[in-house]
Structure formats: C-alpha cells, structure tokens
C-alpha cells in the first residue's frame, strides 16, 4: 500500500477544509487591499537609496497585510487543528494509517505553509508592479525583510498551537492567540519609552521575540538613537527568533506525538 498517497489524500482533505470558499479569496483581497491602498509607500523618503529604500518599501507594504496574515494563521490553527480536536474529527484521522507526526505536518503545512505562500505570492507581484528595479537590485534585502517580519507571526502561531493542543478548544485558543498578539504588540510602546542608549536591554530582549525591531533600528540609524545594532547583530536576533520558533514547534510536535490524548 502506498503511504504517500495516504498523505497526499489527507493533505488535500485538509486544504479543502482550511481554504474553503471564500476564505482564501477574502484574505488575498485583504493582502492586496492592504498593500496597495492602506499601506503608505508615499511616506517613504525617496532621499533614501539602495538597500535602505528596498527595506522601506518591503516593510511599508508589509504593515497591514502582516496583521491580516497573522489572523489568517490563527484562524487556520485554531479552527484547522483545534476544531478537529474539539469535535472529535481528530479521532477519525487517528484511525487512518498515518503517523501522528505526519498528521501534524499535514495540518501545519496547510495552515502555515499555504497561508505564507499566498501572502508572498501577492507581495512578490505587488513589488514587481510597484518597484521592479528595487526588487531586482536588492533582492536579498527584500527577502531578509520578509524573513524577519514573518518570525513574530510564526512564533505566535507556535504559541497558539500549544494552547490548541492542551486546551482542545478552538474558540479559546483563538482568543488566547489574539490576546497574546495585541499584548505583545503593545508592549513595545513602554519598552521604547523607557529605553535609552545606556539602558536598552528591554528592546534587545523584545527583539529576540520580534527581530523586525532590530532590523528597523539597523535601517533607521539616523532616527534611532536608542539602539543601533550592527548587521551581524541583526542576523543574530533573526537566528534567535527562529530558534524560538523552531523550539516551540518542536515542543508542539513532541506533545502531539507523545502526550496528546483524545
């Protein structure tokens, strides 16, 4: 018996559930709307050149779509995984000849992978339309900006995954995820206000969880007097951020495989 066909079948079934009409259409619209209408590339200082300009463009069009993207991930995890656990559908899936880790991988690739591909797909085309030269010349900077900006939503998704697995409640976990998102996003305000060049540890710690702050500080050295990280420092924060993402998902996998009881 071909186990790959079982995986493919299960994957298509999961996609069918996660991306039922009109969910992907609505989010694709929100990404495009957020990119072209609500984001503010006009505010970008054209006095800036080179990779600074590339960063400004990429991070500017990322603002609102990244919020929609985070909500999309939360919805996929809390309803794609949480709802199955809550309603007992997971029990049916556990009677299929698939390993637990395979089931979770299928669920996560559908929930996170496809949502990310949708966002990046919309944004690659947006950048090609808006600033084709910048994308071509400073491809690495644009990619780095996306890698950095995606870290925080992925980290929160990992947290949400743990809440879902432990609570087995879709609504509760969605509320916990959104709560954590807003709490963490607001936290930057007191941290920034209380930081100074002599005392910026809070900002550094925050950057471990959300390395886009470190990248922002790096590309806005003239404005930022509180903390000016070097490029290698930025890369270190990105690595630490993704290490946390990996760690939280490893914990999720271990729990799903060894401890999750239905």
């Amino acid at each position, binding site marked *: 018996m071909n186990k790959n066909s*079982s995986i493919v079948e299960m994957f298509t079934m999961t996609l069918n559930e996660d991306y039922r009409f009109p969910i992907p259409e609505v989010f694709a619209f929100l990404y495009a709307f957020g990119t072209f209408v609500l984001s503010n590339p006009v505010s970008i200082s054209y006095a800036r050149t080179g990779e600074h300009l590339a960063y400004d463009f990429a991070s500017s069009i990322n603002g609102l779509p990244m919020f929609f993207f985070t909500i999309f991930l939360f919805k996929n995890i809390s309803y794609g995984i949480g709802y199955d656990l809550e309603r007992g559908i997971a029990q049916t899936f556990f009677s299929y000849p698939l390993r637990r880790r395979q089931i979770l991988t299928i669920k996560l690739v559908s929930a996170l992978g496809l949502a990310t591909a949708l966002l990046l797909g919309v944004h690659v085309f947006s950048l090609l339309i808006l600033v084709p030269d910048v994308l071509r010349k400073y491809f690495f900077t644009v990619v780095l900006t996306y890698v950095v900006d995606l870290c925080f939503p992925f980290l929160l998704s990992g947290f949400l995954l743990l809440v879902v697995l432990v609570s087995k409640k879709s609504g509760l976990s969605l509320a916990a995820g959104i709560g954590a998102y807003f709490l963490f996003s607001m936290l930057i305000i007191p941290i920034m206000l209380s930081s100074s060049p002599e005392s910026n540890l809070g900002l550094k710690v925050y950057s471990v969880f959300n390395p886009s702050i470190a990248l922002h500080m790096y590309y806005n050295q003239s404005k930022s007097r509180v903390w000016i990280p070097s490029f290698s420092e930025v890369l270190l924060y990105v690595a630490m951020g993704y290490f946390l993402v990996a760690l939280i998902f490893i914990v999720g996998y271990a729990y799903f495989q060894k401890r999750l009881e*239905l």
Partner: protein
Amino acid sequence: MTYLIEAHDLVKYYGNIAAVSGLSFNVEEGSVTGLVGPNGAGKTTTIKMIIGILKPNNGQVRVFNEDPWDNVDIRYQIGVVYERACFPTSYKVIEYLERACRIFGKPKYRAKEVLLEVGLDGSENKPIKGLSAGMLQKFSVAHALVHEPRLIIADEPTANLDPEARGNLLSLILKLNRDKKITFLISSHILFELSRVCNSMVIINRGKVWASGKLDDLLNKLETKLVRVSTDKPEELAAEVKKLSYVAHVEADVRSILIGVTSEDYNRVYSDILDIAKKLGAKITGMESSTASLEELFKLAVKNEETKR
C-alpha cells in the same frame, strides 16, 4: 486460539481518579465481544486505550500483537466506530468514503460496495451533515469497512439510535461477523442489547472486570435465582436476610424485597425467610421466584457495590 486484542492489567488515571484500574481481558478472533458496564465504568477509556488514542498509566494493551499507540500498520486491519460519529461535514457521503478508500489504498468502487453493505445505497449524494443519527451511524460503519478490516472496535454504537435503528445496526454487526468473519469489540451500557449479538462478554464496573467469558459459560457460572418476597416490613427483613451467608444480593423497596441466591441454595432460602419473618413479626403476603438474567444480576451487583460504599 488467536487473540486480536490482549489487555493486561490496564490502569488509567484522570488526575487522581482511576477510570480503569487493573483491567485484563482478551478478544478472540472471530468473536463478537461485548464490553459492558454502567455509565462511568471505564468502557470508553478502555476502548480509547485499545485504539491507541489514550496511553495507559500502567499495564499493556496489544492489538494484533502490536502496541496500538502510533502504530500505523495495524490500522489497515482495524475499523473504528465511535459513539458520536465525527467527520468533516462539508463532504457528501460518497465523496468522503472515496477519500477514505484512497487513504487506505483501496479502489474507489469500494465506497459504493460498503454503502450497499450497510444499506445506505441511495444516499451517496447526501451531505454528511444532512444524515439522521441512524444514517450517520451506518455511515460510520461503512467508513470502518472501506479497508476490509479484520477487527472492528465500536464504542457505544447504538447509544444515539432509536430502537429500530438499534436493531438494524446489531443485525448488521451479526451479518458482518457471520459473512465476512470480522471480529467485533462493542461497548455498551445495555447488557440485554449486546447479549443478542455477542458470544463473549467482558462486564466491567468502576474500572474493573466484574465477570468475563463466553456468554453461555457466564450464564451457567452465574446462574442465580431471584426470590421476591412481599412483606409489611421490607427494610427489617432485608437487613436480616443479608446476614445469610449464601445470599448474593438483597434489595428492598416499599413493600417487598428481592433476594438473589445461587441455584444450589435456592431450596434453603424459603424456610430461612419464613423463620426470619416469624422472629421479626413480619407478615409475608407472597413469594415468587424467577431466574435472573445477566442484566438483572449485573444491576444487583452494581447496586450492592454502591450500598457497600
């Protein structure tokens, strides 16, 4: 004798509460085995450990001689029917079964075959969410059959069904066991219902096996006569009768007591009751006897245990 399921000394705690404590039994190939017990006896917990979605705190369960926790290969040989059938509801009946066929590497036409087998032909294009409770349970059985399993484990499959649907489902189980040689483990809290289809029983209460074995052997071993004595002093009489060493069960209501005794001691009990009544000054207005069904015995045993507690 081949055992498809071997449960040995299973223990499962939820917090400090033991849902199952030291449960051991086997399910023989080709049998229809009933796992019976009142609500909260530990049936679903036991079934979940057998299916591999709960891990026992202690003891061991083997299905097809393998540990069912995350063992993928044995699932080709096991079908599962849950008390509350849970499927993604956005599918039509035939669509979902065809997907299940592909997951198990079975040809697509198998979906139509199983619908015919369970009597759901004609409902192929109905959405799953539009099925009645009875039809949904039949769909669940069809889903458990797509990969032609050797063993079907069903947790309270008749719980949400009306009497007619219940009868139909049990007849289907009998037919599948007879014609396809499928082994069944079925849990229920209704012993009478299962005694219609099962040839073996595991009767559990409070997470422990109360009695187990082939149905005929169980009835012979536990054969008990019931004597109902109508009296004006049921409480006092019951208290004294309980003291007789050979009496297995005593239950009092407002105007009578029900006494359970083994067949051997049946003849002694009449004279003893009359003696006790005389001493107490109780008036006996009638005595009648019958043979206890397994169901009655079980109920008495459960009640006795609760009284002791």
